[in-house]
């Protein structure tokens, strides 16, 4: 699904965010990406959604080298990758419903279908009763869940999450993680950047560790991969 081959990313100004990163994420897999802040976790996720282009090496998505995609092809890729941002990236002047509906509006789906799918997504994250609330009226955890609903409403094959439990209490974090596991069990490939080691340990999934831009550890989960998912 996702393959990194000798990927390096150097930002203008000389900051080396990633150097020679190699790994492969199979279809239907769920993995964690850890490391100190500044280790390059966000950069790695940004390369997959083509928010950045690699300086060297190649990132393959479904077999295609996405570093070579033209600007016109970027939107098509981004519709296949749902991204959950640390800072939510929600439209604060719109209602919950409109935020979650955005990817479907962009794809031009009929309004009736949009409503149905938005409600299904909101139901899954437990926010169905807040669909008409403005974003600022929600708590941090609720906003994060709106972001998740938006990322998954278009049913992308890949979900990327950047510190989704960043500033949530342990109970909410556990709840969110259960949501990711559910989505993974429904067939979505999931990659989560987090430094919540406690959580990772509990879930027992594959864990990739970045240190100063290098992949220093790739540990398979103690827990077997869910049955029925292709690798």
């Amino acid at each position, binding site marked *: 699904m996702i393959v990194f081959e000798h990927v390096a990313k150097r930002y203008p100004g000389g900051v080396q965010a990633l150097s020679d990163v190699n790994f492969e994420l199979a279809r239907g897999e769920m993995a964690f990406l850890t490391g100190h802040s500044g280790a390059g976790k966000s950069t790695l996720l940004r390369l997959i*959604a*083509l*928010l*950045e*282009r690699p300086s060297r090496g190649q990132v393959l998505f479904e077999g295609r080298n996405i570093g070579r995609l033209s*600007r*016109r092809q*970027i*939107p*098509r*890729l*981004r*519709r296949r990758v749902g*991204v959950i*941002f640390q800072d939510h*990236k*929600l*439209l*604060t002047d719109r209602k919950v419903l409109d935020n979650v509906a*955005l*990817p479907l*509006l*962009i*794809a*031009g*789906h*009929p*309004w009736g279908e949009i409503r149905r799918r938005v409600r299904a997504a909101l139901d899954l994250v437990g926010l169905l009763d807040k669909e008409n609330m403005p974003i600022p009226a929600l708590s941090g955890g609720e906003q994060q869940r709106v972001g998740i609903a*938006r990322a998954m409403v*278009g049913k992308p094959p890949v979900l990327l999450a950047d510190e989704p439990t960043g500033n949530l209490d342990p109970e909410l974090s556990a709840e969110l993680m259960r949501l990711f596991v559910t989505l993974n069990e429904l067939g979505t490939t999931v990659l989560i950047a987090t430094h919540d080691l406690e959580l990772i340990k509990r879930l027992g999934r594959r864990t990739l560790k970045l240190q100063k831009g290098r992949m220093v550890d790739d540990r398979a989960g103690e827990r077997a991969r869910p049955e029925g998912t292709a690798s």
Partner: protein
Amino acid sequence: MTPAGGTIRTNMRGDVRAWLRRHGYSLASSIGALVRHPMTSVLTIAVLAFALSLPLGLFTALENLRQINRNFERLDSISVFLALEADAAGSRRLASRISSRNDVLAVDPISPEDGMRELAGATGLDSLDLGDVPLPWVLEVAPASGADPAALADALRTLEGVDMVVVDLAWVERLEAILAVFQRLVELLAVLFALAVLFVISNNIRSEIQSRSEEIEVMALVGATAGFIRRPFLYSGLWMGALGGLAAWLLVHAGIALLQAPVRELAAAYGTPAGLDGPPGWLLAAMLAGSGLLGVAGAWIAVSRQLARINP
């Protein structure tokens, strides 16, 4: 129809529907932006209206002056004064001979009595006693359109029985020259103010983009194409341009309405029942389309710069 063909047709119809839905969304979004910031929109449209009303107003003034000029051109005839001894029959013979020329439109023979009456009328005196001063027969020759009045006058001078040929074209030429200068000025101003419209709208859309940069970024992140992001702003540019053009049009009409009464009085004083004409109808359509397109162009410039930043 095979099932496969049916599917293709259904898909195409679906694509068209999706396209229409996306456009509908952009349209609604652009109107929403105008309505959300009514003050900004009104101010921008007012600036555009003032900027556009100047060349439009000058153009209208120019058209009205042209109208006056055309009226004068009808008076642009050559006066042929015949010798005093010429009689009515001889004068009319000469008149019909001249009127058969190709470069002559019409010849109007004026008898000494008619000449006297006209003179009396023009001076405003009931009767004019010029004593024994005799008036000759005069042939008012109207040149055919396209004919060279000066050459015609020269030809007429050589005819037998002609005493004097008077052509007073200098003032007509001067007026035409002034109008030509005026027209060039209007064209220059039109170009300048068209550029002003482009920059005003571009700048306005740019600040609109800045205040909505978060939204643009989010849309790009969830897979919006450049066209989808650009479209609401292009519509906004179109609305602002077209509304500015319409407002300029109304301003010029208001100006004409205010000037109408004094101009009528002025014209009446000169004995011609002239009023002011508004700008022609085709110009309204041209202005709406033109300023609308300028608005779209301005918006395009502004959005493309922002998009290059989000899509590496």
